[in-house]
């Protein structure tokens, strides 16, 4: 179906790209806020590398990449959370283990798939392929985005309480383990949804850069939520237009737009100035 949208979104493929991009651009920063608050800004990268292992495994056996990537990233997210909360491995080391383990597994599996004579092209998964998204893929991305928004509507306050102070939240009676697990799975969902749009190597940028920009401008958590979503959505729209005009890779341009917002926020935002008691 072709909607009567003006240039540059008059073509069907641009409209599909726009819908998928808006879904991801709007929701990735929402999950990113909690990830940034917990000082796990690189979580998205770690999960992206795990998802790559899932994509390569799917290519090897000839399965659909998105569901396999979602499963591998989801299980990996829970494992990272488990390692982190057990205190046996620090958060960044737990991430590094999965980060490199995932990438190496993906490289081995993709190599194996190529050796068996299948046509293996991992570039669209690594750098995004938003202009070739099929309606089915866009529906899947929209479904993931809806689940993320619904979960955050219900559990956003509790996730904030846990992100602010895990011990205080646990003592106050919140199910901290369950909420942490939910956030890990949401992050895995974002990574797989964004895989299509900006690619696994740039997934974390959409979770973190809009939040980094918003936190320099906003003065409340609520405002940060809205502001980061606006930056994410704006980056997608501007990025798609610029990519079409200049015939550039849309995933990279979208992330560069977010990075530009972050850089500009330094001029707009006021530095926090502690006041005297």
């Amino acid at each position, binding site marked *: 179906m072709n909607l009567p949208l003006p240039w540059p979104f008059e073509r069907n493929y641009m409209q599909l790209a726009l819908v998928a991009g808006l879904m991801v651009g709007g929701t990735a920063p929402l999950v990113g*806020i909690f990830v*940034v*608050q917990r*000082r796990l800004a690189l979580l998205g990268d770690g999960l992206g590398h795990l998802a790559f292992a899932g994509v390569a495994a799917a290519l090897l056996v000839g399965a659909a990449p998105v569901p396999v990537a979602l499963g591998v990233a989801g299980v990996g997210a829970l494992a990272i959370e488990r390692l982190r909360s057990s205190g046996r491995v620090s958060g960044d080391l737990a991430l590094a283990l999965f980060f490199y383990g995932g990438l190496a597994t993906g490289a081995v599996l993709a190599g194996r798939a190529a050796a068996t004579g299948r046509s293996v092209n991992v570039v669209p998964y690594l750098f995004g392929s938003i202009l070739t998204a099929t309606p089915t893929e866009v529906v899947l991305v929209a479904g993931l985005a809806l689940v993320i928004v619904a979960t955050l509507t*219900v*559990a*956003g*306050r*509790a996730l*904030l*309480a846990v*992100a*602010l*102070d895990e*011990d*205080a*939240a*646990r*003592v*106050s*009676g*919140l*199910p901290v383990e369950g909420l942490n697990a939910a956030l890990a799975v949401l992050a895995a969902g974002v990574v797989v949804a964004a895989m299509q749009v900006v690619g696994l190597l740039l997934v974390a940028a959409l979770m973190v850069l809009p*939040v980094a920009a918003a*936190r320099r401008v*906003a*003065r*409340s*958590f*609520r*405002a*940060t*939520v809205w502001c980061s979503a606006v930056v994410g959505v704006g980056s997608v729209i501007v990025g798609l237009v610029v990519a079409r005009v200049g015939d550039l890779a849309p995933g990279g341009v979208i992330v560069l737009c977010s990075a530009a917002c972050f850089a500009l926020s330094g001029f707009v935002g006021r530095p*926090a*100035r*502690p*006041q*005297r*008691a």
Partner: protein
Amino acid sequence: MRIRVTPASDLGVAGTAESGRAPAVEATAVTCRFGADVVVDAVDLRIAPSEFVALVGPNGSGKSTLARALLGLRPCDGTVRLFGRSPAAARRDGLVAFVPQRGRAAPVVPATVAEVVAAGRLGARRWWRRFHPADVAAVDHALEAVALTDLARRPVAELSGGQQQRVLIARALVSDPALLVLDEPVAGVDATSQRRFRDALVHLTRHHGTAVLLISHELSAVASELDRVVVLRHRVVFDGPPGGLTERGVHLGVHPEDLPVWLEGLGG
């Protein structure tokens, strides 16, 4: 996520009704180890509802470890009952609140004073429900108790150190807990904030029937209001009214570096 500011109203005393007559804390032979080191050694501790107890001792004497053991945040030997139930059950029932040591009030992501305080309210109700007027009133009440009403909409990062500590205390008060545990909440806090803090704790114990366990080096501000002082040096070396300490020639406004000398006065 909107926090509306409405006039404070009287709040129910949910915690005390639930807690009944069972002691707020009943700990028997609590022993905690770090590897081979025994940090808390066979400690017995009993705190009645609405009792105001201070836990003092030199650095490394096991105060924070004991507090975490009482709240079930750290596995230790011995038994702990809070209001006649396990620490996990007491937490689930919304009876307990905690101000952790060196808690960070200012988040990485901006949040207002009211937003941070509201985060403490979720456990006392079904956390997934929308905020009701009673919850908003509880936030206002907690902000009033620590005199931060005027700063409710300010980003926490813009507050002074003393004000940020008060935000954390308000976050603990807002669930109207039946037992409040505070781990060095006023370390390095100015005199005005300490007075506000004392008034808030006195209000809690007198009007809400809350039991308070306060770990602090700096007790001069609250000395006159304490029911009991427990001195810990891995074991309990003193447990009695503050007057008992004064009789032994020790005073409660003690700085950490003076504590060894101070403890000698106890003959512990």
